[in-house]
């Protein structure tokens, strides 16, 4: 179209003006963009840099190796075994179900495991390895490895898992570890990030639980670079963490094995062996026991129900948790209290007519016909109850309790085992607090023969024996060294009792085991250098005296025996409690003697340590014991 020069000029002027406005606006906008760049890239750069680092860097924890646990001779009791696993990576496997089906043609995997694995796989990213099955044998792993070309995405893998090589021997002492649970997280005040690792193993009971802090070690960490999908691109750096401290216990695995096996010949029993000099617990036996390895793997519901439903309570550490009336094993302490109070002397005799009358009530001696006149030594030797009824009335419960506490009755020893009991050493205040009733003389009479309110654990009875034998306040201990550092032994303070009084008690215990009228004479030790001093106990579960063979197991008497040996140079104190086992002399004393002999010999004792008449029976009994080979060989371990 034709346009006049005037219009052209006007057009050009207008366009130029508008273009200038447009250019100005555009320049302003470009300025805003530049300002924004400066703001983000210069002023806020550090903040965005940090966000970028957070984006790309993930920290993965590395679980440290758990500390090992050894016995006093260095035999491993808890170790970290290779846990062979088979893992699958979804993106490499393609059809996961088909891949697992092929795997199952090669090795057996039960349906539960497969179901769990499939659920896990569906939840995780395709590149995350998921465990199909674990705790496999080397053979299974080898089969998977050899068939790798046919199993894309499936690889064998190895990790560490707790293993207890001695199985059930130390189930109660060491306890077991298990995967950390929500319950654990709620219960323990612990912000250790390791606990957030799925299936991280922590101590659940026993030493494993009590020494969790030392055994666990501290977490290592791996800084890894991940992409937006979470795939690991590379490892930036790593810190392996600090492995847990190793523990050495005072127990002797051979003796423990013998102890467990010997107790297992009965139904439900426990025993404690203590070194009199150091207080080292060399064996803490319980029967029946269980395999702690089952708990590590995750025990099946059926197995767990078997354990909890068993009336012999295999899960209980009866040696420290069980509180039993000490019965006649308590009599040494009553005697000592009487001597200390000046209410008794060594030669004084008391007449036993079979019972003591207190008001309208008769307190019977176990021997219906009575013992006649008995002195201190005879009262222990024959375990005359009437003698103690008399002492109880002379001395009173307060002084008996004071004496008993000096020997550990009623004291909760600080040992790294679960639910260590304090037992009960009653006195007047205790009864008032507990029952709101005043103490009666009859209560003292019952307490004097270790019945009634008195309750003690096998551990306390062993401590009592050790203190009687040494005259010192020996403290029991279970841990010898932590991380290679020996825990120093504190020398035990002498007990506040006169040595000649203690000697009288010891003499009485000697008579129990080494004189023909002694209640444990049949369970004596022959060699003079190893002579045993002991005391039987039979504690009633019911108030009426009954014939044990005629009542159900639960109503039978507990059989107890406490001892130390050798009499002249005491080395070990032993206590044995056979639950509902009947008489202390028939049921508990032989067990205690066998354990004592094993401890003294450092191995299976020679038959000539036994009375000639018993040897055949003992030999047969040894043959029946379910011992490990090393224990049977015995003796070769250093006794240093």
């Amino acid at each position, binding site marked *: *179209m*034709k*346009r006049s*020069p005037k*219009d*052209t000029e*006007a*057009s*050009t002027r*207008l*366009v*130029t003006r*508008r*273009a*200038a*406005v*447009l*250019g100005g606006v*555009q*320049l302003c*906008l*470009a300025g*805003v*963009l*530049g300002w*924004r*760049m*400066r703001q*983000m*890239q*210069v002023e*806020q*750069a550090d*903040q*965005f*840099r940090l*966000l*970028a*680092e957070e*984006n*790309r860097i993930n920290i993965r924890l590395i679980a440290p190796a758990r500390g090992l646990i050894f016995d006093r001779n260095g035999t491993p009791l808890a170790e970290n075994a290779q846990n062979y696993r088979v893992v699958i990576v979804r993106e490499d496997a393609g059809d996961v179900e088909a891949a697992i089906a092929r795997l199952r043609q090669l090795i057996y995997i039960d349906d539960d495991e497969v179901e769990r694995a499939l659920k896990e796989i569906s939840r995780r990213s395709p590149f995350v390895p998921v465990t199909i099955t674990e705790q496999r044998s080397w053979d299974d792993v080898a089969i998977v490895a050899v068939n790798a070309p046919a199993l894309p995405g499936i690889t064998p893998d190895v990790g560490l898992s707790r293993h207890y090589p001695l199985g059930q021997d130390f189930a109660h002492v060491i306890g077991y570890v298990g995967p950390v649970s929500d319950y654990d997280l709620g219960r323990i005040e612990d912000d250790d990030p390791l606990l957030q690792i799925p299936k991280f193993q922590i101590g659940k009971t026993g030493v494993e639980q009590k020494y969790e802090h030392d055994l666990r070690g501290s977490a290592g960490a791996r800084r890894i*670079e*991940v*992409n*937006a*999908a979470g795939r690991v*691109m590379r490892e930036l750096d790593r810190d392996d963490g600090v492995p847990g401290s190793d523990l050495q216990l005072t127990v002797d695995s051979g003796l423990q094995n013998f102890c467990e096996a010997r107790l297992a010949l009965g139904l439900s029993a426990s025993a404690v062996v203590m070194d009199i000099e150091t207080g080292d617990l060399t064996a803490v036996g319980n029967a029946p026991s269980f395999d702690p390895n089952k708990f590590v793997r995750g025990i099946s519901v059926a197995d767990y129900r078997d354990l909890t439903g068993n009336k012999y309570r295999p899960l209980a550490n009866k040696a420290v948790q069980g509180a039993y009336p000490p019965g006649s094993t308590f009599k040494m302490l009553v005697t000592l209290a009487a001597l200390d109070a000046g209410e008794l002397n060594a030669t004084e005799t008391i007449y036993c007519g079979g019972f003591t009358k207190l008001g309208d009530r008769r307190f019977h001696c176990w021997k219906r016909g009575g013992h006649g006149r008995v002195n201190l030594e005879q009262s222990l030797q024959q375990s005359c109850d009437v003698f103690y009824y008399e002492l109880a009335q002379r001395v009173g419960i307060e002084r008996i309790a004071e004496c008993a506490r000096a020997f550990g009755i009623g004291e909760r020893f600080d040992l790294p085992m679960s639910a260590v009991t304090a037992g009960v050493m009653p006195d007047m205040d205790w009864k008032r607090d507990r029952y709101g009733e005043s103490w009666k003389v009859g209560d003292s009479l019952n307490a004097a023969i270790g019945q009634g309110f008195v309750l003690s654990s096998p551990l306390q009875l062993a401590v009592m024996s050790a203190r009687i034998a040494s005259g010192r306040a020996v403290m029991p201990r279970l841990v010898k060294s932590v991380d290679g550092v020996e825990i120093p032994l504190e020398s035990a303070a002498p007990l506040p009792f006169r040595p000649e009084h203690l000697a009288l008690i010891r003499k009485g215990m000697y008579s129990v085991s080494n004189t023909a009228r002694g209640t444990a004479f049949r369970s004596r030790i022959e060699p003079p250098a190893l002579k045993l001093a002991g005391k039987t106990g039979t504690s009633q579960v019911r108030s009426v005296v009954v014939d044990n063979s005629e009542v159900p197991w639960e109503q039978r008497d507990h059989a107890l025996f406490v001892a130390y040996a050798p009499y002249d140079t005491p080395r070990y104190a032993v206590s044995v409690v056979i639950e509902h086992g009947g008489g202390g002399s028939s049921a508990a004393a032989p067990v205690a003697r066998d354990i004592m002999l094993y401890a003294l010999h450092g191995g299976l004792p020679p038959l000539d340590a036994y009375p000639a008449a018993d040897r055949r029976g003992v030999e047969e009994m040894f043959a029946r014991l379910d011992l490990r080979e090393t224990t049977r060989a015995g003796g070769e371990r250093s006794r240093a």
Partner: protein
Amino acid sequence: MSYLEYNVKRVPSGPGKVLYLNWPLLLLLSAVAAVGFLMLYSVAGGSLEPWAEPQMKRFALGVVAMFAVAMVPLWLWRNLAGVAYLGSVLLLLAVEFFGTTGMGAQRWIDLGFMRLQPSELMKIALVMMLAAYYDWLDIRKTSHPLWVVLPLILIAVPVYLTLRQPDLGTALLLVMGGGIVMFVAGVSWWYFGAVIAGGIGLVAAVFSSRGTSWQLLKDYQYRRIDTFLDPASDPLGAGYHITQSKIALGSGGWTGRGFMQGTQSRLNFLPEKHTDFIFTTLAEEFGFIGAFSLLALYVGIVAFCIVSATRNRDRFGALVTLGIGATFFLFFAVNMAMVMGLAPVVGVPLPLVSYGGSAMLVLMVGFGLVQSAHIHRPRDR
């Protein structure tokens, strides 16, 4: 002024025209394209495949197209403006019926060797159409309501068709590009004042209609707006892109993390890192210096257009040059504002840098027009 009025002999002709080409503009365009090749090489993890090499070929093709367009006398383009506009409208209609669905929107026609986005073509065609219209129109009638309605219809038709695809980003660019041509052509300020006031009213209407039966936008469009206003509200959902984009940009700092060292792009935290979000990779790897330099190049190109236009007494040539420059400006400004969190995510590529065939080709054709206007500008003496 029309070509009939000035001495045609003063306008270069024949192969000698090449000498009159504005070489600095070509240099600026090549520099921007080179930045694109570098970034495409980087985001591919240090490889020419799959993006850098095809992009180079397309740029070469684009340069050839630019030359071809530049050599053609501008009056021919003016006479073809109507054809280009009608053709683009028909192609948009064709997309409506035969388009291939990609990324949830119907935007492409598959030509076999490349996918054509008619909406890209329309950006140039609309500018040409409006420039031709105002060249034809008596300048005294420019602000007459009747002659204002006509260009509004010319804009509304393609905008409606692109909104149908739906492609909000391109529709907005068309509205703004068309509006700018009308502005520089001299349409009265009052109209623009009214449009801005109307725009504010529309925004108010859009927000107040949300959730009612007469809701004006689709739900996903509202969500994009929400995300823009507060990316942190949905950091792993729709806000993820913008949050990660800002992290990449900001973490570049002054000098960047170094070529191919950007963790955000290398580790795939960035979305669409080879297309709409490629600027974040540049900013992350070359920092403020790199990002600002690219902005300076872009501003230089737009400035050239403005200067060239003000010196061009040919009305069509000046309007086309300004329109193309403004469209180019809108491309990079909206893209940069988007990745820096100043504008909602609307899917506008970074011109000449983002991977994409038709956008680059169309832009180069547009600059061919700018060159043609430059070469064939009236010379009095």
